[in-house]
């Protein structure tokens, strides 16, 4: 057994057969006759266009897999392939040195990559691989060589010096056990993709390729098996039986944890004394529905719709929105899906939505406040909601509501949308209307509008920012930012009381609901519906199943008089059951 050490790139442990993948050799190219210059430049242009189209296809596949951020990596690569700067530099080489298009485009890509490596910035230097990857792809197109879609004939750990992002994205994931690279860095796109796909990966493993190819290692032949720990960066060649047992136990524990999460997902979140709490998921795209359902989400308490509106030059059409909402509503039916109306502001400019510069965008014209000037955007979104509601149970909530005037606006927009559809003879479903409680004022005056709404949802992240006057991103203010701050708890209590009086259903959809100790405090205060990132569902479910409501209610009541978040945490953290069932 030989032990090597690298850098953690994606957590998880795995052992198994390995296969080495070498970059499919980019063709070397040669020279051309001077009279062929024009034709060669045209060939280059066609190959660049084709390579850009291929990369666009890969981006589409990664996006379909539910990884929109990672898909953008390939959109950027496609833009590099289309960049006239690359073609211009390559064309100059064709004209002046009579290089053929293959040699010229590879040299041009290498020149740009060298510039990136020289920047003395680890992150940008890692992007040099992207540029070389694009140059190689165009060169292979020119040579008529297929891309190396490394087919794995059995489940294997992939070993290489470096892996191009486009190769990583196209490896068959059902047979890809793990990744071990001699070069690369945790910030390389290959590592980012491995994390997104949940594949253990170690990078920067010095001497890995030599050790694998060295016949003196492993008794005269290449090692038959590798074991990698993506969290610690350890790599073992031909692991001994003790190491194999350790890795199998680690892999088993990970699998058991996931299996028990999925098995327990079918159990109700009910306290020992029989009070049931509904656990829902927060999602940002329709693609996240499946994972949330697998972990037992009983609906969606917060469906952020910004993904439809960002990174484009015009607003999404009503039909495009209906398609997205309909997909989620059908996936969760008969459980409810709560759509949050567009929540953007001056901090997140949208080309077709002129907000203008604001000194303080978080206290500016954001979210529902935009509707005073741009009602059409919201009326269109509400029309799409009414249409999607025909397929199941849909709720719609407005963000950034401060008082009854904002509720008037929401109701007027909804009425307008419904009127439009009725006039056009379109089938319309029923939607429950509600508001996000994230501005303290909205809680203080909730009795002035509660009877006109069906529900309210506490957005505790912004509620904390606006209550404590603490910027969400400022690390120096961390001490104020505990969701169990007594000020926040008192506001939640007030929201519970006023909702009960006004007949509003109340839920929580901030990060507070996904923190097991804080979730117990919320249940103690009277909340019966919590919505959180689906990855938090198992831990919160376990915490609720391990306690008595009577205990939580007593602790919550006492916590309202505590002086600090720390003392409140001290009440609830010991109540969170720590043992993970085997």
């Amino acid at each position, binding site marked *: 057994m030989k032990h090597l050490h690298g850098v953690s790139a994606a957590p998880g442990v795995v052992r198994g057969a390995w296969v080495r993948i070498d970059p499919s050799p980019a063709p070397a190219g040669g020279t051309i006759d001077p009279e062929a210059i024009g034709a060669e430049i045209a060939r280059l242009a066609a190959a660049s266009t084709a390579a850009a189209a291929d990369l666009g296809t890969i981006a589409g596949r990664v996006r379909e897999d539910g990884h929109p951020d990672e898909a*953008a*990596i390939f*959109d*950027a*690569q496609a*833009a*590099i392939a*289309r*960049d*006239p*700067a*690359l073609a211009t530099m390559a064309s100059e080489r064709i004209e002046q040195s009579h290089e053929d298009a293959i040699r010229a485009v590879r040299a041009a890509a290498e020149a*740009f990559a060298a*510039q*990136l490596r020289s*920047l003395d*910035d680890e*992150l*940008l230097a890692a*992007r040099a691989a*992207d*540029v070389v990857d694009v140059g190689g792809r165009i060169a292979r197109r020119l040579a008529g060589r297929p891309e190396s879609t490394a087919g794995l004939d059995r489940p294997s750990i992939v070993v290489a010096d470096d892996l191009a992002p486009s190769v990583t994205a196209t490896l068959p994931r059902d047979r890809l056990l793990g990744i071990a690279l001699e070069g690369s860095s945790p910030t390389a796109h290959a590592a980012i993709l491995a994390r997104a796909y949940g594949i253990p990966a170690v990078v920067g493993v010095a001497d890995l390729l030599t050790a694998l190819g060295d016949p003196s290692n492993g008794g005269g032949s290449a090692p038959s098996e590798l074991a990698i720990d993506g969290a610690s960066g350890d790599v073992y060649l031909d692991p001994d039986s003790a190491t194999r047992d350790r890795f199998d136990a680690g892999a088993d524990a990970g699998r058991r944890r996931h299996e028990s999460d999925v098995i327990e997902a079918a159990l109700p979140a009910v306290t020992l004394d029989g009070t049931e709490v509904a656990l829902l998921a927060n999602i940002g795209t329709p693609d996240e529905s499946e994972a949330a359902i697998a972990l037992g989400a009983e609906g969606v308490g917060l469906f952020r719709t910004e993904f439809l509106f960002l*990174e484009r*030059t015009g607003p999404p059409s009503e039909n495009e929105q209906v398609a997205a909402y309909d997909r989620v509503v059908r996936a969760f039916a008969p459980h409810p899906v709560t759509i949050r109306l567009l929540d953007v502001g*001056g*901090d*997140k*400019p949208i*080309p077709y939505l*002129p907000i203008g*510069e604001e000194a303080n965008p978080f206290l500016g014209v954001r979210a529902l406040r935009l509707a005073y000037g741009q009602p059409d955007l919201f009326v269109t979104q509400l029309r799409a909601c009414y249409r999607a509601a025909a397929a199941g149970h849909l709720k719609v909530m407005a963000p950034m509501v401060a008082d009854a005037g904002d509720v008037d606006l929401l109701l007027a927009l909804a009425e307008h949308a419904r009127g439009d559809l009725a006039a056009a003879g379109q089938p319309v479903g029923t939607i429950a209307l509600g508001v996000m409680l994230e501005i303290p004022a909205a809680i203080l005056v909730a009795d002035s509008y509660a009877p006109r709404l069906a529900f309210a949802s506490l957005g505790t992240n912004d509620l904390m920012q606006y209550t404590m006057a603490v*910027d*969400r*991103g400022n690390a120096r203010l961390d001490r104020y930012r505990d969701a169990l701050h007594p000020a926040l708890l008192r506001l939640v209590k007030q929201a519970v009381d006023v909702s009960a009086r006004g007949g509003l259903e109340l839920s929580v959809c901030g990060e507070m609901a996904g923190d097991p100790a804080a979730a117990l405090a919320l249940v103690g205060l009277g909340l019966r519906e919590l919505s959180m990132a689906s990855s938090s569902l198992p831990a919160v479910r376990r915490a609720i199943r391990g306690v008595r409501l009577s205990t939580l209610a007593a602790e919550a009541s006492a916590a309202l008089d505590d002086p600090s978040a720390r003392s409140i945490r001290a009440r609830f953290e010991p109540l969170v059951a720590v043992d993970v069932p085997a």
Partner: protein
Amino acid sequence: MTSRDVVFHDRYGLHPRAARRIQASLDGIAARVSLENLDGDGSSIDARGMLALISSGVRTGDRVRVTADGSDEEAALAAVADLIDSGVCHPDVPR
């Protein structure tokens, strides 16, 4: 011709995805737009050039001068300068 100075707020500097967003923000705009890294070598970078953008070495906190020239230069300036000002892909203030 019009210009505005902004601070590059993306936590990871001018990386390829940020470059792509800057480039895409100019879709449908005719004006010529360039960036100048006031904390770098000060050379002029075409805001539509992917490779020029990513090899410019602009980092978080660098001051960047955005210059637009053409009939729709105001719209061009607003698109690019606001995008940079807001942090492009990874704003300093996460939401």
